[in-house]
């Protein structure tokens, strides 16, 4: 059977898409899919936006409606209340619309539930099963069959009016009288709240988000501060290779003769060239916010992908939240810990190692802990997390010494520290050079164990002087050697075939991950360029098979912002490292 579908292979090839392709192809050839009545392309969308905007709705109404939608909170301060599955009354966050229809309004296709999209063009336009949406839903996952049939049997209905919509929300009957799935709550809403909610629904999912035009989708990557030029190069090589590859595919697609006109209509329109903007921040971090804002104003981007930072990442995080730009997986050890809506990180960075060590030490508390760290961001964050996470009884038993950044520590420093002579656990947030004088000090036998950070050592296993053999442990937030995921081989092959060197591998793999997950999530959008929907796709995809293996396990979910969540504590032995602890998730 030939439907001319395979040539959308750019994206389909990448994951379980064959099934979706076949399914959709069949639908197409059976002609079961009527035409779409959805606002298409940017211009139509904005025209439609105007035509569906509710007359008389004020900004305040829309904001109040949004609170109902996203937080389940009425303007009166009361929680939103609704009944699901016939007799289960839920309230507040449990029945906020965003929980099921998601912030984007595009719904979900979770295993057990098909939640319809309720973006304005859908609600206030006639609903016919939309090819693009079907593709999206089918493609997203290999769904249980129950779900597939639900998606396919989408009912047809006419456009809602505000009155029929209110009836649907209260009684669960749509404007054709069809009873909505019992999973869709029946809401108790007063008229004012209903009007506010509907005013917000009129604005939901109208048009494309900034950073997309008819030809291109714009992305940026941020390089913040005094980064190692070799790291910068490694990251940029992967970014550029990926963009080149992506654009070559899109180009081939656009050039391709023999699109069926039908096809040209739908998917062809979704194709956009990828444009990369590199935003380099210089000077003091206090000036970065303005630099970012200026770059954004000059060229709004749809999302930030990857990136590299030495030191703080806060100004970038704040831009992402302020401008509602998805920021995917920068290479930084200093992500902002407060959960944001738009900033997704690979791992909690320094903090996770300090906190994991605290958990480890709490499981078999040593009698005395001496911590030494240098006065710099990385070590301070490690130390702070360690202290925050230690049980109160332990906090009293830890003694901390802060030393200057520069001269390396001398024998006399260590001799002084070890004078007490009792069995001591050392936590040293220090580089490797400081270990050597320690090993020469009298009293070295009194050390029972030494904990160091693998990352702070520059991602290397230290050479342990023989006096300290068997006593050195590391916090280690990555997949263990030999713990490789299957995908690492594919990504390595990809990098090799682009003639990229094998050095800085973790950085390259992480960068590749950010790019490939962005690519996957974008495919699901088809032509609905909604940043929220994009983030929702990323949350969904993170747990799939894209993990290139730097971290043992990646997963996100609604409101989860760190894809890897833990760290090991490992023992340094002659043959390298072996786990001492379980994978600790503090």
């Amino acid at each position, binding site marked *: 059977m030939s439907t001319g579908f395979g040539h959308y292979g750019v994206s389909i090839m990448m994951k379980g898409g064959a099934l979706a392709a076949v399914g959709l192809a069949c639908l197409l050839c059976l002609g079961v899919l009527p035409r779409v009545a959805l606002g298409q392309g940017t211009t139509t969308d904005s025209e439609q936006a105007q035509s569906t905007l509710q007359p008389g709705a004020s900004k305040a109404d829309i904001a109040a409606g949004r609170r109902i939608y996203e937080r389940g909170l009425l303007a009166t301060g009361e929680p939103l209340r609704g009944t699901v599955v016939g007799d*289960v009354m839920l309230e507040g966050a449990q029945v906020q619309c965003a929980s099921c229809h998601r912030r984007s309004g595009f719904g979900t296709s979770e295993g057990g539930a098909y939640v319809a999209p309720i973006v304005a063009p859908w609600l206030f336009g006639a609903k016919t099963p939309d090819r693009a949406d079907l593709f999206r839903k089918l493609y997203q996952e290999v769904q249980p069959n129950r779900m597939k049939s639900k998606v396919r049997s989408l009912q047809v209905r006419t456009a809602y009016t505000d009155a029929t919509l209110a009836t649907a929300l209260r009684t669960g009957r749509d404007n054709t009288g069809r009873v909505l799935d019992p999973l869709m709550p029946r809401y108790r809403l007063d008229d004012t709240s209903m009007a506010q909610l509907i005013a917000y629904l009129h604005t939901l999912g109208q048009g494309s988000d900034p950073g997309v035009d008819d030809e291109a989708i714009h992305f940026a990557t941020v390089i913040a501060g005094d980064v190692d030029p070799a790291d910068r190069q490694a990251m940029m090589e992967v970014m550029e290779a990926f963009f080149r590859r992506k654009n070559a595919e899109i180009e081939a697609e656009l050039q391709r003769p023999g699109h069926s006109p039908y096809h040209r209509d739908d998917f062809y329109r979704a194709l956009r060239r990828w444009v990369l903007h590199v935003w380099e921040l210089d000077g003091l971090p206090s000036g970065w916010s303005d630099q970012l804002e200026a770059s954004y104003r000059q060229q709004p981007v749809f999302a930030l992908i990857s990136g590299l930072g030495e030191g703080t990442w806060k100004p970038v995080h704040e831009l992402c939240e302020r401008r509602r730009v998805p920021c995917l997986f920068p290479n930084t050890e200093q992500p902002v810990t407060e959960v944001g809506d738009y900033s997704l990180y690979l791992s909690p960075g320094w903090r996770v190692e300090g906190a994991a060590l605290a958990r480890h030490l709490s499981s078999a508390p040593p009698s005395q802990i001496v911590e030494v760290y240098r006065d710099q961001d990385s070590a301070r964050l490690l130390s702070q997390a360690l202290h925050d996470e230690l049980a109160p009884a332990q906090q009293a038993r830890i003694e901390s010494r802060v030393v200057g950044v520069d001269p390396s520590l001398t024998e006399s420093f260590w001799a002084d520290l070890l004078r007490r002579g009792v069995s001591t656990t050392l936590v040293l947030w220090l580089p490797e050079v400081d270990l050597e004088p320690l090993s020469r000090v009298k009293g070295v036998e009194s050390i029972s164990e030494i904990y160091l950070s693998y990352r702070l050592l520059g991602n290397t296993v230290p050479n342990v002087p023989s006096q300290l053999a068997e006593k050195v442990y590391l916090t280690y937030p990555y997949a263990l050697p030999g713990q490789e995921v299957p995908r690492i081989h594919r990504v390595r092959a990809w990098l090799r075939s682009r003639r990229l060197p094998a050095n800085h591998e973790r950085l390259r793999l992480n960068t590749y991950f950010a790019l490939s997950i962005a690519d996957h999530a974008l495919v699901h959008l088809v032509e609905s360029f909604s940043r929220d929907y994009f983030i929702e796709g990323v949350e969904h995809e993170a747990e799939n098979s894209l993990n290139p293996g730097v971290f043992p396990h990646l997963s996100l979910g609604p409101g989860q912002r760190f894809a890897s969540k833990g760290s090991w504590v490992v023992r340094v032995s002659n043959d390298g490292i072996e786990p001492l602890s379980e994978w600790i998730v503090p």
Partner: protein
Amino acid sequence: MWRFIQSTNGIATRPGQSLGASSLLLCALLISTGLMPGTLRAEDADGQTSAGDEHTGHHVTHDPGSSPRFSRVVRSYRAPDVTLVDAAGDPTSLSAALRHNGPLLLQFIFTTCPAVCPVLSGTFAAAQPELPSDTRMVSISIDPEHDTPSRMREYAERFRAGPSWLFLTGRLEDVVTVQKAFDAYRGNKMRHEPLTFVRATQAAPWVRLDGFLSAEQLVAEVRRLTAP
């Protein structure tokens, strides 16, 4: 090549996994035996037939009104020997959590789950006061790295869980093992299905309820299983 059959209840299905003639007949039979609407009693004594499949075809549509539909099969599952962590942060073996000689209800959830879990747990919450007083309920997180004991406590409070409702989390591998043992593992938590497992006594097999249930339906299931 797929063809789509529009079955009478409006659910398009795929041949091979569809409501074949025999299962339709079976459905009709079962319904006519006077079972409560919306439930399908498809007890196969060997418990083998559909391990691993999606149980499509077991669905019976009734009045598509306010109560949901679900399927019901009897299965024997062997709970693995793993140690989980309860909401207080204490290690608890799964077998201890399931060692209970009254009705036992089990669901898999996670605290950031968008559509499915609030409804699953909401059904437990609403059924709570109506269930026999010796009923134990167990909710196990399938996202244990995120669902720390304190997040589980918060979640429990959201649903006003009483003392006989346990919330368990643990190590990722262990939780995967548990899900696999109950044929509930779907690889990605976002693909998680609405399942409720019910057992009348420790010796009884599990009843697997697939789909959403109203509180009334759930209570009726438990009552029926525990009826003398």
